[in-house]
């Protein structure tokens, strides 16, 4: 994993935090160096700051994409312009995170980029005894049919495709509801709570887990 970030403090934080989680990291301090190393190395994922000395972060991404390098990119930005996110994604970034961010948020998003979701052409998803039929729009856990509202269905689909990954509230809001803002209330918790009551019966082992300080995770009971 390559982190292209000019601010030493931020870079150190990122490197330390991800190191603890078992990732192997390298760091470049400016755009030119970053681009050179991103080209040569075989990286699983790139973390690129939007504002870099030498060569702008977006230019780095555009150059890489122009050369056919498809390594997933997470764009970091201290800029908080309304359209910055759109520009970052349009330039070829795969995800976008505005500073200040929680390291757990960064880790979760990197994890998502590293583990691309299961084959999107699959029409029936399975996690443990949980089954989701995308064509028939039905869900069941073992023999128990689950009555899901359309949004709950989407939420479950998203989580099942990312089995075992930590999903933050912001990721769920962005990808399930398509909302870009952070609501003041614990909206996501309430929606997850409703889904959880349907998926995890009172005498069943929980599949939807809360990850303290980070978000939620769906996985087959051990």
């Amino acid at each position, binding site marked *: 994993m390559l982190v292209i970030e000019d601010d030493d403090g931020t870079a150190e934080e990122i490197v330390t935090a991800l190191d603890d989680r078992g990732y192997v990291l390298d760091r470049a301090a400016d755009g030119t160096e970053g681009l050179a190393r991103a080209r040569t190395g075989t990286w699983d994922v790139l973390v690129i700051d939007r504002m870099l000395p030498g060569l702008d972060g977006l230019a780095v991404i555009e150059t890489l994409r122009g050369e056919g390098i498809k390594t997933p990119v997470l764009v970091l930005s201290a800029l*908080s*312009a*309304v*359209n910055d996110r*759109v520009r970052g994604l349009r330039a070829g970034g795969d995800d976008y995170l*505005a500073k*200040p961010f*929680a390291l757990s948020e960064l880790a979760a998003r990197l994890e998502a980029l590293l583990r691309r979701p299961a084959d999107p052409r699959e029409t029936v998803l399975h996690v443990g005894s949980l089954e989701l039929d995308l064509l028939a729009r039905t869900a069941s856990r073992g023999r128990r049919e689950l009555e899901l509202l359309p*949004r709950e269905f989407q939420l479950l689909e998203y989580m099942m495709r990312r089995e075992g990954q930590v999903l933050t509230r912001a990721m769920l809001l962005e990808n399930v*509801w398509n*909302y*870009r*803002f*952070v*609501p*003041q*209330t614990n*909206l996501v918790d*309430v*929606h997850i709570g*409703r889904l959880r009551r349907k998926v995890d019966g009172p005498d069943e082992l929980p599949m939807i887990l809360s990850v*303290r*300080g980070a978000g939620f995770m769906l996985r087959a009971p051990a």
Partner: protein
Amino acid sequence: MRLPEFVHSTTFRWALGVAGAFGACTLLLFGFVYWQTATYVTGNIDTAIAEEAHLDEGSTRQHILDFIDDRLRDDPRRVKLAGLFGPDGRQIAGNVATLPSGMPLDGMAHPSKLIRVDNRGREEQNVRAVARRLASGDVVVVGRDADELREIAEIVARALALGLLPALCLALLTGTLLSRRAQWRVDEMNRRVQRVVAGNLNERLPVGDYDDPLNRLARIVNDMLDQIERLVGELASVGDDIAHDLRTPLTRVRAMLERGRNSAGSLPDLHVTTDRAIAGLDQSLAIITAVLRIAEIDHSRRLAGMATVQLSDILQAVHELYHPIAEDKGVSLNLDLSAAETVSGDHDLLLEAIANLVDNAVKFTPTDGSVTLRLLQRADGPVVRVEDTGPGICDVERSAVFKRFYRSDRSRHAAGVGLGLNLVAAIVKLHGFRLAIADGPGCQIEISCSAA
């Protein structure tokens, strides 16, 4: 040679212009006076000489000679002329040398030049003269010197010179003084403005007693400075508010960490403390993020994500998003779409704004209350309205709720960082829509989606 600075000033140029116009008017006036006087004097002369020349048709030559003698005898100013000429034009009597050629013999006064001959020699005089042929064939000429007209002209010119020149000088002097004074006032204003620029915001421009343009301008600038001083003060207090709202959670976090470090007996104990500290820091970060987001929306000049947006879709989405939360709280969230209206705007931002309104409404509505999200159609455009059965907002608090970080004292216990409405206001303003708090039971907030 470099002219002094005041010569270039507008006031001085005005003074010059006014002096010029005044001079032209005076000239015109004096010209008129001269013309009127000359006409009057000429008229008098003409009447007099025409009367004198009006001799009886049958007057004898002796009679005429007596008349001429009579006329010429008492003329110390040498202004009178008279002559008698034979039918052949030969001079018979009088002090006129020759009968001027081309002079009509009609008994009317005409301007003419006659040669005067008397004991002091020959002299050509500008006169008004009457010539008339008598029955005998003789021609009688009566004239009077018209030099008086020239004298009048001279008097008028002298008066003009004596009156106009000092007036012009006075005008120039006044102009100079006025422009000097204006210059001085502008310099003084500049000095004060420089002090404001240097950061001394309580400096004001001097305002005189008169209602002249410069004073009016100074008053306008002073009003503006008052407003700026007030805004800067408010900004500073917003800074205080932010600092205060940040200090509260940070102080708590610090205390937690200190306690954890000193008294945590086991690793799980420390974990509990750390998690609580992280939650506290997240709250501080949320405040900072919210402030940055409001600033970002405030500073956006235009909308990049402009598109035609179906308002009912947004309302439905917000309703779906908040329905479970309202239900958990025992508040019913109703949706009333009596219109299907589109507006031009940014879908994500409008969603954020309306979601914030609903968020607030749900938060402040007590259990068993209700929140209604309505889309109305008014003559000037669609209106999104969020009504609740909560405590409402009293008049005094209405403008304050849009101030950053304001939370009504009654709601201090409710969660949230108190920035929601600011964000809504910023988004609404960016769209050119209007935000209003309507009267009614509970709180009713409207976004009027028509160009303001």
